[in-house]
């Protein structure tokens, strides 16, 4: 229980650290800006603004940051009743994955002190990080939608205790080895054009992590080692552990993104294992045809889970 509170605290600190830069922005006229629905940008002003100027589409220039020459066509601009929030409506749906630039031009100098006000609208980075996490956890769950790590998955999902032990051990090793892989990839392999050594280096780092965790745990906390030591050997036979660094290298993730991906992959594996173990414990009481007892029925249950996880496809929370 104590470990859990520690974990929660660490998570809270991390979230705060990531949120701070988002909160500490905005000066001048603009208090906030964000994407509304798929063809809308919402701009919040610090004080109520003039309807005649700020509700006129002619005062706005909007473009995608990478396409400064292509102006996006505005359909209309509405101010809400307080006069503090402007809704910019567009004729075409926006590509909200890309940052947009909004320029307010020909402003009366008396209002703001300058005639042009330019700012960037982008999805918050924290949201992006969380979307990587959720994606690895649910949408692209490594077990049920990418079909990886199945040997260990079927081997250790017989009992819930085993499932928990395996899941937690795996997550820890996953995060540590993914971060080390990221470090090696960015600072050793990429600068020297050694991309083709990916497989060897990544599997080597995984073995190293497993060995290190094994040694440290044995010395520092023998009780924990007795509980989790047996799973450490199995970690290396799990293809998720090598798939995550490969995905990281393929997508050129940065440190935080890699961390989120590894955490999501580990958490997703834990989730899958635990759910599967819960079902299999109950299934022992069920009357399964003799030829299907054990692994065959487990496969069919996994297929049903996979069907259910297909429902997460395309989910976007952030």
């Amino acid at each position, binding site marked *: 229980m104590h470990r859990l509170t520690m974990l929660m605290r660490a998570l809270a600190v991390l979230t705060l650290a990531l949120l701070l830069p988002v909160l500490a922005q905005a000066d001048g006229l603009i208090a906030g800006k964000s994407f509304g629905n798929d063809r809308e940008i919402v701009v919040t002003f610090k004080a109520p603004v003039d309807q005649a100027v700020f509700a006129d589409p002619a005062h706005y220039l909007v473009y995608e940051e*990478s*396409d*400064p*020459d*292509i102006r996006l066509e505005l359909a209309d601009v509405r101010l809400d009743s307080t006069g503090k929030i402007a809704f910019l409506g567009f004729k*075409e*749906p926006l*590509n909200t*994955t890309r940052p947009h630039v909004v320029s307010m031009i020909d402003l009366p100098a008396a209002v703001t002190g300058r005639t042009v006000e330019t700012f960037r609208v982008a999805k918050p980075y924290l949201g992006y990080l969380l979307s990587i996490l959720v994606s690895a956890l649910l*949408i692209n769950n490594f077990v049920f939608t990418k079909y990886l790590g199945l040997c260990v998955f079927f081997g250790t999902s017989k009992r819930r205790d085993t499932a928990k032990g395996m899941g937690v051990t795996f997550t820890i090793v996953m995060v540590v080895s993914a971060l080390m892989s990221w470090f090696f990839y960015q600072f050793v392999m990429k600068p020297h054009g050694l991309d*083709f*050594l990916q497989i*060897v280096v990544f599997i080597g780092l995984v073995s190293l992590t497993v060995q290190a965790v094994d040694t440290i745990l044995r010395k520092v906390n023998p009780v924990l080692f007795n509980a989790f030591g047996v799973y450490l050997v199995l970690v290396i036979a799990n293809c998720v552990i090598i798939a995550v660094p490969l995905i990281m290298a393929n997508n050129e993730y940065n440190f935080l993104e890699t961390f989120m991906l590894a955490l999501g992959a580990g958490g997703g594996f834990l989730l899958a294992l635990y759910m599967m173990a819960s079902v299999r414990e109950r299934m022992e009481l069920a009357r399964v045809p003799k030829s299907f007892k054990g692994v065959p029925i487990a496969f069919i249950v996994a297929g049903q889970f996979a069907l259910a996880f*297909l429902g997460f*496809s*395309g989910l976007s929370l952030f």
Partner: protein
Amino acid sequence: MKDISTIIFRLTLTCLVAALIMGGSFIVTNRAKQHNQQVNEQKVMLSLLGYSAAKPAPASLALHPVYRYLVTEQDVQTLGYLVPVAGGATDAFALVTIALDGKFVARHDLRLAPEKAEQAKERLQAVQTAVGSGKTIQYADQTIIVTDNGQRQAYLLPGEFPGFKTFVKVILALDPGFTVLGLEIMEHEEDPGLGGEIVQDYFKNQFRGKPYEALKKLGVVKEPLPDEYRGALEAGKTGRLGPEEVARIQEQYKDHDIYALTGATISSRSVTNGVKGIVKKFAYRIAFLDRVLAEQRIVVPF
């Protein structure tokens, strides 16, 4: 102690042997890989233009890549187009910078071997030296202009846009009047069997023959695909319909919206909007580029 030294020695030797094997096969395979990739890309492009093994492209057909860069100098952004210059050596290129409103800014001549121009890194270096320091250069995209005997035949536009899950990478072929000649999906991560069906002929070929006017307001309808139309779209694979028949049916549906894939309306809509965006942006930009090239008397091979 002796144990450890033997272990270290043997491990080092093993690593060395492994490195030799891997390095050796890397050197052997890497060249073949790059070559095959190029051949494959070329094949896709030619097939989009309607050429195949049965109907090879004429020797007079030439592909001219034009690279677009974003040039930033103290908050002022301009577009830089790297175009080949005709009439001189094959390594003559010019970087033409155009202001955001379409006015000509500057022309920088540079020498760059065509093989090097294909390498993103070396090209960027050459462009950076041409414009001088103090300006930041960012690669934006590439357009391939296809000519036959110096006559402009088509445009090939590699592009990328968001799909239902992640991104979709495509190559789009347009004729000089911006009518779509073909669409090829290069890479995607949509769900297999659902959104993944965007790679099928009966979806991607629906874009073929759509004129620019229809494309500008192209939408997606959730109706079943008519059998006759489906037959025409898959004619390339099944070979059941003759070319005249296919052309007739295509003409009939050329202003019709895109029929959505069953169970993948969002993927269908993403592709439609993505294609629309690519064509619109391109049509807008090529007009400015052509005007500037004509005004400045820059002779290009297309």
